[in-house]
């Protein structure tokens, strides 16, 4: 199980347990996502019976009502989560034992310097006033001032954010481009118990990949490709070749997870009654899979893909530190070690906010792509 799986793990098994669905992932890494998938597919079967526009012969689409409510609910949840995040990141500096400025500057720093820094951070003012100025600063894009470099945090984070975002984005693209076709192909090849050996080999390999945390994979990849074969740079960000290892070590685990799920989803879809209808129409193979099977797997793939993207963003922290990648991950670890609390606050806020926004966007996409719009009901 990969790092972000720490949070997802326990629910996964519980969800897979009582439901005995065909979609239950083979191993625990799969179960992390399978829980959600099953809820999604189980829910859709129920929703098929929901009245919607079916009752009347007027034939109208479901009214804007559910959509409005859905948007309100999801936006509300995002705002609540963001509020929690802001409060938490504000509180961070106040929960540090002792005096954060003294801790940052060390015992030898002169008292005047500590005092001036305290004033700079506003730590001498009442707590509510501090929170208010923190909030109004945030609204103006002001994340405070770095203790070590005396630069605005927003400036320190700015470039690094792009670097991390591109890394996570590329890795996500690799995940989708590799896992979706691969999982579907393997589902088709191993349907109704064919090619047992291929199935076994794939499941074993994919599960191994999901079981290795990305930073360990990165260490192994560096050993092999950079040190052993001297094909790729060990660390740093320079030419295109320096992107290869970070992107692929970041993508490998999630891609394996997604491919496992997509294969099981493919098997599930292929066994559905509507696929028998499609076969009864004697459609060519291409249409059978691309037109009739694929759209029914997209919801599940997108849902899990979104979860994986959130995990990828967080996962950059470790991988960046293996490759000394100039991004938010190396920044946050460096700032924790140098006790540069405003910078820590800033990175936590930006990375956490990014993950929350991604989750919302994925929810919306899934709702748009799912013709039954079952997510609207949840």
């Amino acid at each position, binding site marked *: 199980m990969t790092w972000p799986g720490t949070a997802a793990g326990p629910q996964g*098994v519980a969800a897979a347990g009582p439901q005995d669905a065909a979609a239950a992932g083979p191993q625990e890494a799969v179960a992390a996502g399978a829980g959600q998938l099953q809820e999604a597919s189980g829910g859709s079967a129920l929703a098929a019976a929901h009245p919607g526009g079916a009752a009347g012969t007027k034939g109208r689409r479901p009214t804007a009502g559910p959509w409005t409510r859905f948007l309100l609910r999801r936006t509300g949840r995002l705002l609540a989560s963001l509020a929690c995040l802001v409060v938490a990141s504000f509180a*961070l500096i106040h929960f540090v034992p002792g005096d954060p400025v003294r801790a940052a500057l060390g015992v030898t720093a002169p008292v005047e310097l500590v005092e001036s820094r305290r004033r700079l951070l506003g730590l001498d003012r009442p707590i509510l006033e501090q929170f208010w100025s923190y909030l109004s600063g945030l609204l103006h894009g002001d994340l405070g001032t770095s203790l070590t470099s005396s630069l605005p945090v927003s400036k320190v984070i700015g470039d690094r954010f792009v670097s991390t975002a591109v890394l996570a984005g590329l890795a996500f693209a690799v995940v989708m481009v590799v896992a979706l076709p691969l999982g579907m192909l393997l589902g088709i090849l191993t349907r109704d118990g064919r090619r047992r050996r291929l199935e076994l080999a794939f499941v074993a390999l994919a599960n191994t990949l999901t079981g290795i945390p990305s930073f360990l994979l990165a260490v192994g990849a560096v050993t092999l490709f950079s040190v052993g074969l001297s094909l790729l740079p060990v660390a740093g960000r320079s030419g295109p070749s320096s992107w290869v290892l970070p992107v692929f070590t970041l993508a490998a685990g999630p891609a394996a997870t997604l491919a496992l799920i997509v294969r099981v989803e493919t098997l599930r879809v292929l066994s559905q009654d509507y696929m028998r209808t499609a076969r009864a*129409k004697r459609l060519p193979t291409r249409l059978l899979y691309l037109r009739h099977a694929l759209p029914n797997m997209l919801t599940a793939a997108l849902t899990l893909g979104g979860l994986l993207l959130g995990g990828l963003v967080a996962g950059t922290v470790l991988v960046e530190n293996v490759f000394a990648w100039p991004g938010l991950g190396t920044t946050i670890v460096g700032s924790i070690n140098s006790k540069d609390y405003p910078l820590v606050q800033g990175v936590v806020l930006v990375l956490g906010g990014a993950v929350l926004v991604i989750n919302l966007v994925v929810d919306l996409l899934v709702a748009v792509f799912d013709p039954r719009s079952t997510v609207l009901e949840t």
Partner: protein
Amino acid sequence: MQRSSWLRALRTPTGAATALGMLLLLVLAVVGPPLMRDAATTFNTSAIRQGPSGAHWLGTDALGRDVLARIVVATRLSIGLALVSTLIGVVGGVLLGALPVVLGRRAGRAVRAFVDVAVAFPGLLVALSLAVVFGVGARGAVLALGLTAVPSFARLTANLAAGVAEADYVSAARLAGASRGRILVRHVLPNIGEPLVINATIGAGSALLAFAGLSFLGLGVQPPGYDWGRLLNEGLNRIYDAPVAALGPGVAVVLAGVAFSLFGETVAQVVGLRTDSRVKGAVPRLALAGEAQDGAVRAAPRDDLVLDVEDLTVAFPGGSTPVAGVSLRIHRGEMVGVVGESGSGKSLTALAVAGLLPPQATMSARRAEFLGHDVRALDDRERRSLLGTSLAMVFQDPMSSLNPALRVGRQVAEVAEVHLGASRATAAGDAVAKLAEVRIAAPALRAQQHPHQFSGGMRQRVMIAMGLVAQPRLLVADEPTTALDVTVQRQVLALLRRVRDEHGAAVLLISHDVGVIAELCERVVVMYAGRVVEEGPVADVLARPAHPYTRALVESVPDMTTPRTRPLVTITGRPPDPSARPDGCPFAPRCPRAQARCTQEDPPLMAMPGTRAACWFPHLDERAALAAGPVA
């Protein structure tokens, strides 16, 4: 749990490997530090940064300490820290997750909302932030990881507890006046213990990896202490001169993590929480493959026979033959009903006729002609074209037989595009016309909708419309009304009749409902145990059944005159197992008229007045007995 199931789990390769791995970890954690601490901690300036050798299998580090010894000694600390943080997570999670049970509805909902928000944050960020608060070091990291795991365990507990709280015995306890706290301790917690323990075990594996991550980042164990993550961090600095120093602890982390996860999985399997991951149920095989081709093979029937199947047998691996020697002839425009109990082989007969049998089934027949073509002799392209245009299927469950992801109009239009070479626009227009033909109001609008916006009866009409796009010669309807309301059933049946009247298509109607067949069909075929036991005009067969089984079937249908005080007539016993059919007549064990001959000789289908029946002692009371002779 029973000891035997544990032993059985131990004998599987995974179970054995898991047990071995856990045992090894335990041994290393217990005896590793006392045995190897010297080699792991003593500086040896004469052996600095050595590569792997006989004395030092994984080489030495910058201070001449044996790398392998350090990895072994680090086992205890690495696992210990992971277990402690998991314990914090589980205890915190159970306390938080059980709150809704204790607090009551409103406060409980607030707690769940909080947990939902907390779960949404990426664990790594939470752990890093908490590590800042608790201070960099092993203690801070344990607390941070433990607290990070709290929300997910809280959600698990809340979900499990909510499930248990619905149970009857909890309601009973509540009615009896038990307090919420008592319900939690006495009823809820004991019943969610197992899944919690299993998830905690798997969670410990994750915590192990996570802790290695934190130490690797320099935020966990601090020197001179060392766990696997710390060793990995030190090893990465020397990756050029000694890659094994980095790989060694990495491998240890992965193996230990896998051992914990597998252990949780194995426990879960033994206690039966998770089922076999293999997808159950056969996925029907795609009968046809190849490229799309335009141009239909035009049907050229030699006579008015649409379908001519002789001696059809469907067999499954393992010797089961659910369809054994069925012959079926359907004439142009004829409506034929096939009736029988579930398991009589009627649906498989329909699927075999349509070439849609599941992949593991094998089919054989003396003759299998559709519109005069031997379907077995056609090549893929021809068969697809012939069956795609001239044969239409309507399945039992309209709720699941339409593709939920595609617009209804698209699904209807598809056949015209693929098999008739129609343009997309033409096909779409045609689809709307067909929808109108099956009496779907506002067809143009409806064509733009998805199946979930249709009722069951409408979906079944869409299925029929789909079959009408090309000019079908045969419509095979497998229990088309079983899943529908009675009023909707009549509409669909009326539509099937119109399909025959207006398109001249023959209809093969499979049903367990004698009434449906009596209403719609001209001829009826009664199936029992994979064979035809009686066949003839509906009026004759159902009014004066010759075969005792047909008679029992007809009598078991209640009508308006059936006295309601008496129990419904049922046929006692069960049909024979298709893999172990007895000698003689398959109905003999259940037959009130059975005699010695019935259990010895299997009766063939014999001509009788107005019908053909496979019975040695048919009901011929009201009929003039006819010399019964086998029909060729």
